[in-house]
């Protein structure tokens, strides 16, 4: 068992464990932290697959920005385990069963797929200059469009989150 495989199993265990933590923990803040853990584990996977750029971008975007926003919102609303709405036992069991059935169906469908070895290290396609060349040559239009998407999402978020003028101002730092 070499380092690569060890790291794979380690990150996989962390990812799955943290993912379970996300859905099982009662406190939303804990969920967020577990999700951060999952994302870090996934970034670790990217690292060992030598996709360094994506790994760092994953950290910066997901854990550094998106999850902070989640945490932000949860803190603003002061959500904790006490106010967490809970579903009935039956619904939860049904959710687990249907999710599990979906998993089993998909596994059963692909379990015969011929395993191909992941060429872990020898290829530098995940490095930033290779990625950048393709991104700015072949995907320049999607890139530009996604920037427009970003802009519109930003404006949309501002418009949605804008206070109605009738309401008194609330302290929100967003």
């Amino acid at each position, binding site marked *: 068992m070499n380092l690569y495989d060890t790291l794979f199993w380690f990150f996989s265990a962390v990812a799955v464990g943290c993912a379970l933590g996300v859905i099982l923990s009662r406190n939303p803040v804990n969920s967020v932290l577990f999700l951060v853990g999952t994302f870090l584990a996934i970034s670790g996977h990217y690292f060992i697959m030598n996709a360094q750029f994506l790994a760092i971008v994953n950290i910066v975007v997901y854990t550094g920005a998106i999850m902070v926003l989640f945490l932000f919102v949860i803190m603003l609303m002061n959500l904790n385990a006490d106010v967490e709405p809970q*579903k009935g036992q039956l*619904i939860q069991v*049904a*959710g687990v069963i*249907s*999710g599990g*059935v*979906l998993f089993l*169906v*998909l596994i*059963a*469908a692909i379990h015969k797929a011929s395993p191909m070895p992941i060429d872990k290290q020898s290829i530098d396609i995940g490095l930033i200059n290779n990625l950048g060349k393709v991104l700015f040559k072949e995907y320049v239009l999607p890139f530009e469009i996604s920037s427009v998407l970003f802009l519109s999402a930003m404006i949309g978020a501002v418009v949605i989150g804008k206070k109605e003028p009738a309401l008194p101002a609330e302290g929100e730092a967003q």
Partner: protein
Amino acid sequence: MSQVVYLIPLFPLIGFLINGIFWNKMPKSVGGAIGTLAILASFIISLGIFFEVRSAAFHGPVIVNMFDFISSGNLNIPFAFQLDALSSLFLLIITGVGSLIHLYSTSYMHEDEGMVRYFAYLNLFVFSMLLLVLGANYLVMFIGWEGVGLCSYLLIGFWFKKRDYTNAAKKAFVMNRIGDLGFLVGMMLVIYYYGTLGYQELFSTLGGANAAVPSSVHSWIALCFFIGATGKSAQIPLYTWLPDAMAGPTPVSALIHAATMVTAGIYMIARSNALYNLTPGVLHVIAFIGLATAILAATIAIRQYDIKKVLAYSTVSQLGFMFLALGVGAYTTAVFHVMTHAFFKALLFLGSGSVIHAMGGEQDIRKMGGLGKHMPVTRTTFLIGCLAISGFPGLSGFFSKDEILANTFAHSSVLYIFGLLAAMMTAFYMFRLYFLTFSGTFRGTEEQHHHLHESPAAMTIPLMVLALLSVVGGYVGMPAVISHHNAFASFLGPVVKNFGVHHLAESTEWILMTLSVVVSVMMIGVAWSVNKKPQFAESTGFAKLLENKWYVDELYDAVITRPLNALSEFMDKYAERRGIDAVVNGVGKSVRWGSDRLRLLQSGQVGSYIFIMVIGMVILFTISFFWVR
């Protein structure tokens, strides 16, 4: 010159657009001038094209492709114009007579508030008519065909405030549509069997190597086209719209319902001569229908009192003559008669317009009489028109009608006798009209008598030009016995191939000519003697039958309209309400019943939606991975 052919329809289109867009903002004289000048410009280019086609350097038809109109699979129909002897001749007739009538209209319609609108319609009509004759395939012809039908509708119902007039317009439109259906079916048959609509492609493959197409198909196509022609050219059984169409302004009657649009059917059949030459049976039908129409319309014309109705029935009758000529295979003769008829019938209509103008809108000839004294120009030109249509020797009608009769005689002497009968009646009713109108004493009111006057120059100049044409127009097609060379027939020869026309012995032709002249002159005399002391008693018996147009309208009403109405009512009450409505409502009700139950699934809880979505995903995956192999 042929490369600028698109200008010919373009000018009227521009005129239409200008007049149509600014119809309520423009002074009448400007609108009239624009309309007239547009047609005049077209006429000038048409003249150029005509001389180019006539020149020795011209070989075969020129096809000018404008753009690809329909391109789908193997079917490729370009928007193309075809220039040859036939189309250039029709161009001349349309634009020439058209510009004269436009000029006439500037004066005739001057009192009318909708004059600019009128000119817009008129330009649109000319545009459509030019498309009809210029098109290099049946589709372009059909566009023009529908366009002229539309304009005819618009112009007949021009004074749409009168209910009768709009009804007449509707009648014309519906009748035309019935014929158009035939044309459409014919076109589809052509596409189905030949995969093209272009004249050149179609006629070159027609009946030749393409043996896969059964010959009966040719007959069906020919018949369908002929049905289209009967609608547009007012033949039995679709002729009743034309007399009613006299509701429109008189210049419209002159242009559309005498000179141009109604000859579209003849143009189409002459154009499709290659097709009809393959189907002698259909030609017989055409000849028979044409002759029947000629006689029927002539008999009706004898007992009409409306000046325009007489002319209308006369037009129907003359169109019947043309179809008779087509039916006996003498296409060039038919086209020749189209041309001469365009001259003298337009002249007669415009003359009657002049009379109506003078009478202040009165159209009943029983209230006229003695007008010749007051309007000498109208009288003289009208007389020339009457002589021409009656076949007086030396005038245009003489040559064309005589040629038709000669060809008919060569075909069958029985048909000839009936044709001669129709020609006799023509002379009679035309001169009955003339005498009742222009000679004798005035029978109208004092006020009308006071107002009688000659029309202004804008109206009399077209009359004089047309009268001149009516006199000399025939000399281009003098029969071989007189000039040894029928210039007209040889001009059209490359395009229009006559079918089964026998050449008569010279002596026979002279005899036939003399006979028809004698008969005509005789009938003029009869008409004079009958109308010397006109009395308008309530007619009885046969005369009444004629006066009521053989009760054809009533017959149609009883045979077609009423049963149809009854059927519709029946359908409305039972099939529609109990059958279709029940089905439709039943579908609605059952959907409603079902959705009442399905609604319970929609709990409004997002969670349950996700649940259902996941379950659906599982089921779909299961099916696609494990069952569907």
